[in-house]
């Protein structure tokens, strides 16, 4: 009998999802609605890494997202977070975002190495809706995928890399 032991996510690694939104004409603009989420090979949700939406508005697109529902405290964290909106750092380049997946699932447990589907879903107020999906094998080898842009996103990169 063969005993197959699956290896846990290597804690030295992280998955960085970087994307740049296309600035609509006319000066300031609202940050888009975004969901970054991970699914396993069977299409089952593993983790909602990041979710931005406007509290107080019924964002219709949210129902297309699996696994978005959270308790009150978590919803605060997802919505740009009391940390993310209260982050002080060197002046950042507008429109460029990096979201990091640490290999934990929604229950906070570290997942096994393996094949996943990484999703970047974006919807802009007075704009369009776009979904970028990519299968990635996340083990112990760095992987970098540059993705073509669309009407909302200038460029995107999914990078499985050693933690910075």
């Amino acid at each position, binding site marked *: 009998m063969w005993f197959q032991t699956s290896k846990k996510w290597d804690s030295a690694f992280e998955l*960085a*999802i970087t994307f740049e*939104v296309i*600035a609509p004409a006319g*000066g*300031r*603009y*609202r*940050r888009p609605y975004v969901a970054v989420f991970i699914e396993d090979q069977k299409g089952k949700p593993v983790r909602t890494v990041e979710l*931005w939406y*406007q*509290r*107080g*508005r019924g964002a219709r697109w949210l129902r297309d997202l699996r696994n978005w529902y959270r308790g009150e405290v978590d919803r*605060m964290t997802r*919505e*740009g977070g*009391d*940390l*993310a*909106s*209260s*982050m*002080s*750092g*060197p*002046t*950042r*380049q*507008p*429109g460029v*975002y*990096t*979201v*990091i997946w640490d290999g934990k699932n929604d229950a906070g447990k570290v997942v096994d190495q393996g094949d996943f589907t990484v999703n970047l879903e974006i919807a802009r107020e007075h704009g369009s809706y776009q979904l970028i999906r990519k299968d990635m094998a996340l083990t112990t080898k760095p992987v970098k995928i540059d993705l073509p842009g669309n009407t909302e996103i200038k460029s995107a990169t999914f990078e499985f890399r050693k933690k*910075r």
Partner: protein
Amino acid sequence: MNILKAFQRPKTIPYQFHYEGILGTSASLRFDCLDADLAEIACKLALEHIAQLENIFSSYNPNSTLMQWHGTQTLPCELASVLDNAEDWRIRTRGAFAPGVTHPNACWEKLDESTYKRLDVPPFTLNAIAKGAIVDDVAHLIEQAYPDITQIVVNIGGDLCVRGRKLVRAGVQSSDDGASPLTVIGLCNQAIATSGNARRGLHIRDPRTAQPVTHTPLVSVVATSAQLADVLSTACSVLTIQESLALVASTPESEAMLVDAAGQQFKSAGWKQLERQARTAC
């Protein structure tokens, strides 16, 4: 009837708004209140006010009050007050903070209360200090206009002002948005500004030598106003670590954390207390 419920106030909700393309960077506004419509109205007012102030301070808009100032002119009080603060700190830091950027000398002369004369020097910029001044002004405006908003956080490009009764958590980050913050602190009616070269490269110069500075790649300062935090974080990027800590120690109600090129962290006397406060902050 549950007697406790009779005394409970309804819990406010933190409404957050995130924008890009404000002062050339991103902005986040948080208003805690009971009513989404009120939060939206406050957000609209805040954005309009930011645009008005940008028209005064911008170094990029050729029609701004600052860019239209030639020779001797009467300047609006918002600009005059920032010029006076900038000049005070240029003198106090002996040129480590200087609007001239590549030289530590005066760029204007004050003739009377609201009349200033530009001197014949290379163009100067108020970018760093003006951002903090705008953040303070917007937070103050909303606080005065809407007493039903019990907690305000205004964050433009990392310059953050907190107004209200609560202790609010703020994170200090060096570069990547997604990375965990270097540290988290609790702020109540305070401001924080962070200077660093991680995102825009070696853009901070020592005005006394005109050379880019590299010895302190990250400085984060907490002060009573975002304008002051801005000035101090810029000056501390230029001064040595020891000089910076001395400057902060001599400035009332100010604290700082500095990270040197080797990654070592230096904290002012009261910084650790700010970190402890984060535990009860919201």
